[in-house]
């Protein structure tokens, strides 16, 4: 086998062994980078597109978000005498088109990525779960 006569010194493997050894003992800026997820969470960027929330005062229930949603996630429902969007997150693409389309800038997508649940029904986020009241700075 010609291969072994050329490669009997295995210099490539030696080099690789040195690199992995450096990683085992974290030599030269090769730290452990993972986080212990459920106990320790990473910081999210401010623009992170997570679960929706709707500004209670700004929303006018116009239904533009319903039309602009590519996947039919949004439905306008009546809640406390007014019309608000209801999000079926099981179908949501988290694309942010509803946020862009909202003429009143009422829809926000921030935080909330731990959305796993036991039933499909519980993925439907009605107004009672997504509305928030903006604090007015005076």
């Amino acid at each position, binding site marked *: *086998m010609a291969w072994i006569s050329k490669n009997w010194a295995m210099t490539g493997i030696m080099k690789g062994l040195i690199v992995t050894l450096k990683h*085992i003992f974290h030599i030269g800026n090769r730290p452990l980078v993972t986080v212990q997820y459920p106990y320790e969470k990473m910081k999210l960027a401010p623009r992170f597109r997570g679960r929706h929330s709707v500004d209670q005062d700004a929303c006018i229930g116009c239904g533009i978000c319903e039309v602009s949603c590519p996947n039919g996630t949004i439905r306008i429902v009546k809640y406390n005498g007014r019309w608000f969007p209801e999000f079926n997150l099981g179908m949501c693409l988290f694309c942010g088109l509803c946020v862009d389309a909202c003429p009143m800038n009422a829809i926000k997508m921030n935080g909330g990525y731990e959305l796993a649940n036991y039933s499909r029904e519980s993925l439907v986020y009605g107004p009672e779960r997504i509305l928030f009241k903006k604090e007015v700075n005076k």
Partner: protein
Amino acid sequence: MIANAYELVVYILSAIGIYDPINGFFQNYGMEYLLRIIIIVVEIVVLLVFVLLTVMFLSWLERKMFAWVQSRYGPMITGPHGLFQPIADGIKLVGKEDIIPAGADRWIFTLAPFIIFVPALLVFIPLPFGDSLIISDLRIGLLYIIAISALSPVSILLAGWASNNKYSLMGAMRAVAQDISYTIPLALAAIAVVLYVGSLSTVDIVRAQEGTWFDIIPRWFIFVQPLAFILFLIASIAEMGRIPFDFQESEQELVAGFYTEYSGMKFAMYFLGEYAHMFAVSGVIVTVFLGGWTGPVLPFIPVQITSLVYFIIKTYAVIFFAMWLRDTVPRMRIDQLLNLGWKIMIPLALLNLLVTSFLLTAGVV
């Protein structure tokens, strides 16, 4: 001179002064063989517990080192730095459903995982853990070790055949082909050492490595027989079935090879068997080439304890190398592996044997 662990126990008991009364008690009933049996059973239980604990620790170490290489933490939650993770895994595996595929040969399928444990444990019998810490110093110790560890493909072939799965069968066939081609260079490399020592007994091999040259270099056979050591090491890693030679599993090609269909406790048996085998093979490498239990003698500490510590340190060094290698290199291809075995390692081993025997006959060494 204490020859083995049984005599060591007798010596300790006599030193405390309770051996004679106990022996006398059994002699009254004409059953002194019962005492021998009890002592031997205790020895074997201690060995089993030791091996199982080591195996658990090894599986933790493997995962931890693997994680460090990959810049991960690895298991951290169960116990300090995840030290009890193997126990948690064991409990989980015991609780899993034990699936036997419909087309499988039920008896062989169930039997195969237990067969793999037998050779992995029997190898420990003539393996000296320390000065006089040996179950039985067989006169054919090394031959016994090589013969017994060549038994493990039997279990793999049974498992692969009984699973009635094409991937399992291919994995099993590969394992057998690999084992046959690597046991030969393994044995040939060991024979060079045996010629040098003039005995197959593992204790004799270790005793021959005691002392130093020029008070610095230990008289280990790695320095006398470097080529044999490299061949033995490569063949041993192939015997362990680890990357770069893990063809019996070869996850990316054959799903999981011979244990594709196994689950639950049977899977755990294979898992434990693999690590027990790894520990045994590393121990053999240390015994044959790295001086076994030998090392500087310390004052005030019994030689049995220091020798055990030396042996374990050396064994872990070999295991560390095997794990380190696993984290670095990809898997070879099966035909390349067989080429390496038959076309390179066996001729080299024969050449090494020839040169060694020539030098021995000429009286050079």
